[in-house]
């Protein structure tokens, strides 16, 4: 099929909406909210792309996916080609099509967004990636790379590690991923809920990488089971992408009451251990009618929407700034609201109040107002004196963020860290130890899946150069 509409015809097409499970249905189960575009929707949406020369969208993508090219192939209904282009640039397209904040990246740069709506690049990426998974027989076979004779250890099986592993395997290097947990995916599996990213998708993306020859060893904790110096001896290069993951405590009274969770624990119980999701899961999770989640990021949204699905009648987000300042994706906020999540803005917790038997009973809060911009450029929230009040809550979840985990770095004294304990790495991921590279949250602090993937991709390029020297 030809993709030969005139610009005028393309401009006349309106942006398509993502079909979704109805809010009242999905707030009671863990099924994926976004259903994916139909064939017709995808084709129509692809035709909206002007395939402009500037390729501004590509510059907005941390892994530089050849966006106009894959969309053009899709508009020609050459799906095998679209899939090949997409997969060539992005190791985890079915993941990115679901969890990337496209509205602030590729779609924010889209020329069509200047007057009207950007092309729904994320939806199309998901469409092509899902098509590829469903049609393995029709895909263009990737040539098996000739073995380079070099080996690379990748620490962490999350988005940065998986991306780097895929890139390096395509160069013929023998890649082994070491994962601390018992399953693959890192934050994709333990952090992001099923209703946003089905575990099946992770399994399939990981299977593609193992198909390229990537070895994955779970239950290996670098820093404990093996150390960085040991990896340095056994492999020609090392890429560290072990994530952030050390919860930042609220440091308010009552934090050790029963029913208080750090977001990582709550999400790990439900996502990785399947607590509350499967009847036969042996890991429990505390369910209460009123659940208060503190924080305004995507993790907070994941927690509150999970709590809602576990049966909370009142699932609340408490955030000390306003909704406009929330770092969460617009889509997450919209979905949470549709599902009945309550947003209590400009509110900061002062104390977690407990019952006599030391279970959480309420959250004592103070109202905030926004003052002058702070270092982050956002208006600083200031408490309004005398505005203290209590919100009844049976579970409180702290989703304010994570810091650098010292478990790995403690075993590698030569690895230079910054004052927060994050690994110091240059633009290519190179660290203070030759042959050792790092990326993702252990370098950036808490960031996004796609930025971690961007790090994995650039580090893989740098490692490839390093191995050729």
């Amino acid at each position, binding site marked *: 099929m030809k993709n030969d509409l005139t610009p005028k015809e393309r401009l006349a097409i309106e942006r398509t909406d993502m079909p979704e499970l109805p809010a009242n249905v999905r707030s009671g189960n863990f099924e994926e909210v976004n259903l994916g575009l139909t064939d017709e929707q995808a084709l129509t949406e692809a035709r909206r792309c002007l395939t402009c020369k500037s390729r501004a969208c590509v510059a907005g993508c941390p892994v530089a996916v050849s966006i106009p090219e894959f969309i053009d192939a899709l508009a020609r209904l050459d799906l095998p080609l679209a899939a090949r282009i997409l997969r060539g640039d992005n190791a985890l397209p079915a993941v990115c099509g679901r969890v990337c904040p496209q509205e602030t990246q590729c779609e924010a740069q889209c020329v069509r967004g200047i007057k009207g709506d950007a092309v729904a690049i994320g939806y199309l990426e998901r469409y092509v990636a899902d098509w590829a998974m469903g049609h393995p027989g029709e895909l263009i076979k990737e040539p098996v790379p000739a073995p380079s004779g070099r080996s690379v250890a990748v620490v962490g099986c999350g988005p940065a590690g998986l991306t780097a592993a895929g890139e390096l395997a395509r160069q013929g290097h023998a890649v082994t991923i070491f994962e*601390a*947990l*018992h399953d693959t995916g890192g934050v994709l599996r333990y952090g992001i809920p099923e209703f946003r990213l089905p575990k099946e998708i992770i399994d399939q993306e990981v299977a593609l990488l193992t198909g390229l020859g990537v070895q994955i060893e*779970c*239950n*290996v*904790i670098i820093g*404990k*089971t*093996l150390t960085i110096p040991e990896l340095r001896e056994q492999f020609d290069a090392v890429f560290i992408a072990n*994530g952030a*993951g*050390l*919860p930042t*405590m609220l440091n308010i009274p009552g*934090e*050790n009451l*029963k*029913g208080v*969770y*750090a977001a*990582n*624990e709550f999400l*790990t*119980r439900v996502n990785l*251990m*399947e607590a509350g999701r*499967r009847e*036969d*899961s*042996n*890991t*429990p999770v*505390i369910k209460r009618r009123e659940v208060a989640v503190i924080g305004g990021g995507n993790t907070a949204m994941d927690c509150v929407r999970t709590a809602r699905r576990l049966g909370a009648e009142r699932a609340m987000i408490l955030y000390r700034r306003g909704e406009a300042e929330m770092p969460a994706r617009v889509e997450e906020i919209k979905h949470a609201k549709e599902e009945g999540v309550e947003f209590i803005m400009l509110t900061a917790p002062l104390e977690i109040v407990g019952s006599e038997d*030391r279970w959480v009973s309420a959250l004592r809060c103070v109202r905030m107002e926004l003052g002058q911009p702070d270092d982050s450029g956002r208006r600083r929230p200031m408490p309004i004196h005398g505005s203290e009040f209590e919100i009844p809550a049976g579970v409180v979840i702290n989703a304010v963020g994570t810091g650098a*985990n*010292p*478990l790995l770095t403690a075993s590698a004294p030569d690895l230079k860290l910054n004052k927060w304990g994050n690994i110091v790495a240059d633009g290519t991921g190179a660290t203070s130890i030759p042959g050792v590279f790092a990326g993702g949250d252990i370098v950036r602090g808490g960031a996004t899946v796609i930025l971690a993937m961007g790090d994995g991709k650039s580090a893989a390029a740098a490692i490839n150069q390093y191995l050729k020297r």
Partner: protein
Amino acid sequence: MFPVLLNEILAENLHKMVVSAPRIARARKPGQFVIVRLDQGEERIPLTIGDSDAESGTITLFIQAVGASTRRIVNTPAGGALRDVAGPLGKPTHIENFGRVVCVGGGVGTAVLFPLVKALAAADNRITTIVGGRSSHYIILADELAPLSEKFLVTTEDGSIGIKGFVTAPLAEILADRHRRPQAVFAVGPVPMMKAVAELTRPYKVETVVSLNPIMIDGTGMCGGCRVQIGGETKFACVDGPEFDAHLVDFDGLSDRLTSYRKEEAARHAETDCKLGREVAP
């Protein structure tokens, strides 16, 4: 998969399992633990590494089958396998030649104590070991601990073996005697026991180390579930511990948080018993 090479019953509900885990065996130091997950869908259970042999690539676990998950773990026969074993986790015990040391073990805590006693003995400490339990059935590892100790004492609540009463009685006696007073005390057991030991040694300012067992998931500091208050500061038992200065531990907070899932545990226990009943029915 981690093959189970040996599964021996030491006492009622207490098993000694030898598991093949070469990397862990090589890296492990006394005081460290592993996280075991029997199979898909199972819990992650932290278990102290009782012993290890780098040469044969094995670790020894002493497992008390107290909950539904640990019961299923000990039901794995030699020749079977554990799906996931991750470690060694936690900080190793600080071992030095303290001089005189008293090691106190209560119930299955004795299994956690064993590697400490072994390491302390290797560092030429003069060790008095006190092991306590409800009755003679709950006294474990006596044959292993006695040869490592200069003195080996047993207490039981019902007096069925050794001194009738709690481990704290002989400890109090030793502490009160200036000539026998130790330079360090290591205590592992139920929270009330460790708390009692801490209170006994506090007035004498004897360095006292306890090994804590809070609720834990990943064991790598990620989830924060195992947080304990140490001297008013929040610490994660999995990465900062599991051993802490007993005089700084908030034992009440620890024992309270340990009851977080009591209701759910009870429900699952009932379910397991029921299933077991069905299995043995003709």
